[in-house]
């Protein structure tokens, strides 16, 4: 590193020195510092020289204020007071506390042991069978309702069908003439099954509606295709007629 020092020196000697900066006014001829008062002297603590007095203390004077005098206020009552406008308040009845005497319930709550006995009693009370329903009027014979064919034409299948219809008609008539005399009860499990079946039927009906929607859509598509087919057939027919005319006429 020192090998190149001679190059640095030679370059520094070749370079010209920059001109000195201009002189600032007053530089070098500053006024002497004023004499500062000594800290412990009495003149510096209390008195102020006339040359150091503030200017506004001589020119402006503060206005003089008079002290406030308290005014005596005497309240005088008028001889006749204005009439009081009284509004009649609604009369309230005095609220009297109603003394309620605790009464013993007719039936005390049951203890767990007694509850089981009570359940047994209830179980016995529940009707085991559904109450019978009485028809209002006696049923008419169904032979009148169903027209009979000649015996020669009656087949075995028809006979079975007739029997089935007869039974159904009997049921329907019995239902029409029903009069509910007593309250009807259904077994809990059976009721639950009925509710389940109803729910399933509801779901099935919804599915059927969906299928119907699909079917309608397909029918619409089919109609469109049929229209296209009809148009194409008509077009072909016209062309064939043209060819026929061109060839044979």
């Amino acid at each position, binding site marked *: 590193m020192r090998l190149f020092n001679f190059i640095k020196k030679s370059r520094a000697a070749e370079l010209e020195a920059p001109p000195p900066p201009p002189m600032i006014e007053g530089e070098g001829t500053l006024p002497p510092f004023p004499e500062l008062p000594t800290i412990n002297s009495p003149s510096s603590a209390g008195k102020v020289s006339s040359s150091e007095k503030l200017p506004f203390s001589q020119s402006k004077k503060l206005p003089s204020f008079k002290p406030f005098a308290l005014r005596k206020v005497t309240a005088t009552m008028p001889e006749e007071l204005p009439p009081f406008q009284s509004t009649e308040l609604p009369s309230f009845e005095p609220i009297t506390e109603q003394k309620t005497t605790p009464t013993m319930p007719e039936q005390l709550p049951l203890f767990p042991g007694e509850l089981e006995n009570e359940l*047994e009693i209830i179980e016995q009370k*529940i009707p*085991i069978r559904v109450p019978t329903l009485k028809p209002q009027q006696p049923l008419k014979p169904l032979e009148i309702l169903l027209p009979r064919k000649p015996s020669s034409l009656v087949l075995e299948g028809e006979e079975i069908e007739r029997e089935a219809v007869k039974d159904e008609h009997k049921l*329907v008539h019995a239902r029409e003439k*029903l009069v509910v005399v007593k309250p009807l*009860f259904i*077994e*809990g499990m059976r009721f639950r099954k009925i509710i389940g079946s109803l729910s399933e039927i509801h779901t099935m009906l919804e599915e059927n509606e969906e299928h119907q929607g699909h079917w309608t859509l397909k029918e619409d598509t089919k109609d469109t295709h049929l229209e296209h087919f009809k148009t194409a057939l008509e077009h072909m027919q016209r062309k064939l007629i043209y060819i026929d005319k061109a060839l044979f006429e």
Partner: protein
Amino acid sequence: MEKNETMQVFVKIDDYKDVLDIMNMIKNKLGDAKNTLNEVNRLKNEEDAELELWQTSLEEAERRIMYIDKALFEPESL
């Protein structure tokens, strides 16, 4: 606990007659729906038969047109 499980519970039905009427009505509607479905099935079968006929007649027409085409533009092939 076993008693509670085996105990029968009954549910009271207030409008039993109405329920029966509604059930009857539903049965009638079901019968109607069955009839409609049978009718639709019958129509569909007829449609299928018609479609078969259409297909046959179209094939016949195509065959004849092909023949005419050949007769007109390729007489030597006949």
